[in-house]
């Protein structure tokens, strides 16, 4: 540890922390984008047109299985060059769109699983009670579909927080970029990068614990039916 310099640490700390505002606001902006676009995916996915659904599933697969870093570069460097539709985007907007759309494909799956987990009987019951489509969704389906997905959605917020430093590669000045700047100017990367790691750990670890707690609470409150179901299943599975 002979090379560790506390002076550098304390000098770099306030400089790096300054980027926390950008990092956190970018996290929430990307997350919001993912939530909204994810909803659009889910909505299109529920339409009755088979070819559309087929195309959609491949588009989602493409976005999901290619690197978000390349997608960021595409938006930042290539999008302005695309004829007719291309516009120059500032780094922050690029990051919001790039990371937001990338993770929207995951968020869309979460929505879908939430809706799929609502029992068939609930759909039949709302039909039997002659609910209108909007009423069916707002009064019956969504109130049951959303709560179980909250812990999963929370996890994606934390994942997003940890993905946001990718945006430093296109020049978003969050904590990682500030640490890199400091390193480049002073030829000291050790302390500023360690500060970044500590900041991430300090913010994400307690959040993860919080979500774990939420998850356990949810399981107890909402999964009575689930518990019954899994009991039935395990009776069949344990041979």
């Amino acid at each position, binding site marked *: 540890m002979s090379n560790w310099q506390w002076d550098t640490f304390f000098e770099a700390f306030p400089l790096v922390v300054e980027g926390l505002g950008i990092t956190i606001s970018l996290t929430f902006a990307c997350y919001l984008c993912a939530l909204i676009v994810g909803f659009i995916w889910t909505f299109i996915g529920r339409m009755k047109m088979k070819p559309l659904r087929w195309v959609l599933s491949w588009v989602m697969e493409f976005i999901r299985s290619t690197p978000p870093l390349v997608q960021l570069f595409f938006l930042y460097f290539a999008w302005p060059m695309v004829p007719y539709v291309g516009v120059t985007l500032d780094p922050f907007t690029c990051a919001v769109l790039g990371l937001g759309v990338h993770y929207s494909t995951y968020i869309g799956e979460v929505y879908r699983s939430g809706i799929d987990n609502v029992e068939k009987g609930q759909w039949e019951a709302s039909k039997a009670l002659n609910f209108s489509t909007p009423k069916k969704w707002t009064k019956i389906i969504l109130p049951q579909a959303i709560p179980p997905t909250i812990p999963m959605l929370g996890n994606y917020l934390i994942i997003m927080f940890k993905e946001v430093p990718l945006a430093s590669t296109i020049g978003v000045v969050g904590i990682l970029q500030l640490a890199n700047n400091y390193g480049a100017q002073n030829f000291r990367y050790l302390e500023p990068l360690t500060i970044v790691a500590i900041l991430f750990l300090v913010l994400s670890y307690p959040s993860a614990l919080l979500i774990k707690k939420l998850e356990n609470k949810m399981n107890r409150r909402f999964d009575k039916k689930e518990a019954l179901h899994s009991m039935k299943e395990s*009776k069949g*599975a*344990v*041979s």
Partner: protein
Amino acid sequence: MSETSVVTNESATESTTNNEDAIVSYKNITKSFGDVEVLKGIDLDIKPAEKVALIGPSGSGKTTIIRMLMTLEQPTSGEIIVDGKNLWHMEKNGELVPATEKHLREVRGDIGMVFQHFNLFPHMTILENCMTAPIHVQKEDKASAKKRSIEMLEKVGLGDKLDNYPSQLSGGQKQRVAMARALVMRPKVMLFDEVTSALDPELVGEVLEVIRDIAKEGEMAMVLVTHEMEFALDIADRVIFLDNGVIAEQGPPSKVLENPDNERLQQFLHRFRG
């Protein structure tokens, strides 16, 4: 009491080494789970080839008794002697110390068990379920383990299912596989833990039939935790009624099940028959 009539020539040679000794003896066994004392001093001898039925209300500790013999549960105090060897303790430098895994393995080799929920290995075929332990545990060569496993599966009526997976079988068939799997290990004592409780009523018969066949062969001691009173009456040499962690009454099935002294046992039987 009736071992003289049941013991065959083969097992007679085994039992001579123990003379009249029991194959299993529980000596003042207690067991607590947390603050709850489930067993409060059990003394019990099981003779070679003896068929013992354990009955009693739920929570009376019947299952715990056989699980301790299978080393799935550790007694809080007392000793269990298997074929002359102390199960849960071993001697080290003249002192009695808690048994190591190695010691447990040496002693429990004589014990086999069939479970309420079958516990077949779902990733293995029926045949693999049976032949894995002989090959890996008893180091039997593969061909002979396979041959014996097939014979055993034929005996329980599943010779045509060798390459099926457990998930493809009915509950009754699964339980018969579980018995074959335990039998190929040639245990001296076989434990049955409520083996019909998880089965649909119409499947109980086929499983009891197999147990009856095994019992007729006679050479193995059997301990059955069961709720099937008629069955116990039919095959057991001795019935033990367990209540509140003690043996409340025991004796030949005709006595215990048809003319019991213990008042709680009378109530218990009444509930079952009524």
